[in-house]
C-alpha cells in the first residue's frame, strides 16, 4: 500500500513540479549564475564569461550604468511604498463599506471595484493616459470645476510617477478590498456585542477590535501589494518610456531594456538578483513589523 501510494504521489506531482522546476527554478538558478558573468542574451549560455562581482560593482559604481540602475531602483521603491501606503488603508475603508450590514450598496461597490481588477493593465494604461491628457482629458476639467489649476500629470518629472501610482491603485484596490472583507468576516461578532455593552464607541471598536484582528490579513495584503508593485511595466513601457527625465524608469522596465533589448544578459541578471534580494529583505521586515505588533498587545 505504501509502495503504491508513493508511486502515485510521484505520478501526481510530476507534471506540476517538473514544469515549475524547468521554468521557474532552473531560470532562477541561471539568473543567479549569470549575474556573475558577462554574457550576451543573443548567444548561448556557454558563451557566458565569469567576471566575479564586476556587474554588481557597476550597479553600485559611479558610471552611467550605476546611475540609471539606482534611479530605477529608487523609482521602484518609491512607487512600491506609495502604492502600499494608499492601497492598505483604502482597502480597509472600502472593505468596511462592503462588509457593513447597515446600509445597502456594498455588493454593488464590490462588483465595480473588482471589475476594474479584471481589466488588462494595458487597457488601464491607455485609458488613463487619455484621462490625464492636459488638454482634452477630463481630470483637469473636473479639477477646474472646483477651482484647482490644471496638473501636469504624466508630462512632468515631479508628478509622472505618482500619476502611475494612482492608476495602479485604481486597478488593484478591488482585489485588496475583497481580502479585507475576508479578514473582517473572521472577526467574531460577539466581540463587538460585548464592546457595545461596555459602551465602547464605534471609533474605539475599530482601533481595539477590528484593526488588531486584521493583522494577518494586512500582512498578507502588504506582501502581495509589494510583489505586484515591483512588476509595474505596461504604463511605463507604453505611455512614459521611463520618462520624463528617467522619473518613471522602474526596475521591471529597466531590467528588460538592459537584459533583452540591449542583450546585456549578465548585467540584467545582476539587476534581477539585486531586486530579488531587496524583496526578501522587505518581506522579512514586513513579517517582523507585524509580529512586533502582536507581542506588544
Amino acid at each position: 500500500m505504501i509502495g503504491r501510494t508513493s508511486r502515485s504521489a510521484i505520478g501526481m506531482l510530476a507534471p506540476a513540479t517538473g514544469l515549475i522546476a524547468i521554468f521557474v527554478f532552473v531560470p532562477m538558478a541561471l539568473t543567479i549564475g549569470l549575474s556573475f558573468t558577462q554574457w550576451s542574451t543573443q548567444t548561448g549560455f556557454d558563451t557566458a564569461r565569469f567576471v566575479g562581482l564586476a556587474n554588481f560593482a557597476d550597479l553600485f559604481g559611479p558610471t552611467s550604468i550605476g546611475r540609471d540602475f539606482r534611479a530605477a531602483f529608487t523609482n521602484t521603491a518609491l512607487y512600491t511604498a506609495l502604492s502600499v501606503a494608499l492601497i492598505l488603508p483604502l482597502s480597509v475603508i472600502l472593505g468596511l463599506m462592503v462588509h457593513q450590514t447597515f446600509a445597502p450598496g456594498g455588493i454593488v461597490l464590490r462588483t465595480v471595484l473588482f471589475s476594474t481588477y479584471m481589466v488588462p493593465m494595458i487597457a488601464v494604461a491607455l485609458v488613463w493616459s487619455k484621462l490625464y491628457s492636459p488638454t482634452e482629458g477630463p481630470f483637469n476639467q473636473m479639477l477646474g470645476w472646483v477651482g484647482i489649476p490644471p496638473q501636469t500629470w504624466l508630462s512632468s518629472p515631479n508628478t509622472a510617477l505618482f500619476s502611475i501610482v494612482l492608476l495602479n491603485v485604481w486597478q488593484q484596490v478591488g482585489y485588496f478590498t475583497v481580502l479585507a472583507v475576508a479578514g473582517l468576516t473572521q472577526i467574531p461578532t460577539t466581540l463587538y456585542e460585548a464592546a457595545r455593552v461596555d459602551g465602547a464607541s464605534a471609533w474605539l471598536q475599530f482601533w481595539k477590535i477590528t484593526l488588531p484582528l486584521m493583522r494577518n490579513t494586512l500582512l498578507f495584503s502588504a506582501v502581495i501589494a509589494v510583489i505586484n508593485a515591483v512588476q509595474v511595466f505596461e504604463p511605463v513601457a507604453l505611455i512614459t518610456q521611463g520618462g520624463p527625465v528617467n522619473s518613471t524608469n522602474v526596475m521591471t522596465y529597466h531590467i528588460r531594456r538592459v537584459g533583452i533589448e540591449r542583450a546585456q544578459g549578465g548585467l540584467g541578471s545582476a539587476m534581477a538578483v539585486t531586486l530579488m534580494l531587496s524583496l526578501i529583505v522587505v518581506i522579512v521586515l514586513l513579517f517582523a513589523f507585524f509580529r512586533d505588533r502582536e507581542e506588544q498587545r
Partner: protein
Amino acid sequence: MSSTKRPYRRYPANWKSSLLSLAILVIAVAAAFPLVWMVLSSLKTPAESMQVPPVWLPGSPNFDAYFEVSEVVSLGRSFLNSAFIALVTTIAIVVTSLMAGYAFAKYSFAGRDWLFAALIATMFLPPIVTLIPLYRMTGYLGINANLLGVVVPHLANAFGIFLMRQYIKGVPNDLIDAARVDGASEVTILFKIVAPAVMPAIAALTLFAFVYHWNSYLWPLTVLQGNTDQYPIVISLSRLLSYNRGAMNTGLVMAGATLAVLPPVVLFVFLQRFFVDSIMATGVKG
C-alpha cells in the same frame, strides 16, 4: 461565507444609513468612471475626442472606430491568439494543479512539506527575475517567437496547487478510502470523486488563470520577438497607439481597449462569486 448564502439583510431606514449609501454610490460611480469614459470615447467621432474642453457624451454615437480597429490590426487573428493562450494555459493549470494539490493534500511522503514550501515560495517571485534566462531557454527549446513559447512555461503554477490543496483537504478521507477498497485507480479517484467535490475551486482557478493569461503582456511581448502574426489582443492594442500618432486617434485606442476588456470583465460579472470565495479561502487560511 459565500455572498449568495448571506442571510437576508433588513436595512434600517434612517439618515445615517442613507448617508452611507450615498457615499457608497459616489465611490462606485467614481471607480467605474474610467471604464465608462473609455466606452463613451470609443463611440465619439475623431473630432469630438480631440475637443478642448472635453465633451463627455458622443453627439452621434457610432461604431466607426471599432471597424477601423480591425483595419489597423488583424483583430480576428489577435483574438484567436489570445483565446489560444488563455484556454491552453487554463486547462493545463487546472489539470496539473488538481493532480499536485491532491498529492499534497492526501498523500504523506518524505519531504512533502519542504517541497510544498519550495513551490509556494515561487508565488512570491516576480516574473522579471527569471525573464532573461527564460527568454534564452525558449530559444534552446525551439519555441521562441511563437505561441508555444508563450504557453509552455505557464502550464503549471504554485497558486493553483495551493488553491487545490486548500479545497481537497476538505474532501473526506473515508470517501477516498472507500473508492480505493473498491479497486478504483488513483487517477479515477481524482477525476471522478475529488474533482467533482471541489468544483467551486476549479471554477475559481479557471477564471483566475484565464483572466491572468488573457491580460498578460510582458512575457508574450518578450518571447514573440516582434512576430505580429502571433500577437495577443493586448499587444496588438499597444500598436494602435503608435498608429496615426500625430492625430492622437483616441476613439480608435478606446475601441480597441473596450474590445480587450470585454472577455475578462464579462466572465467576471457572471462568475464573481467563485473569484470572491477563492480569495476568501486563500486570503484567510493562507
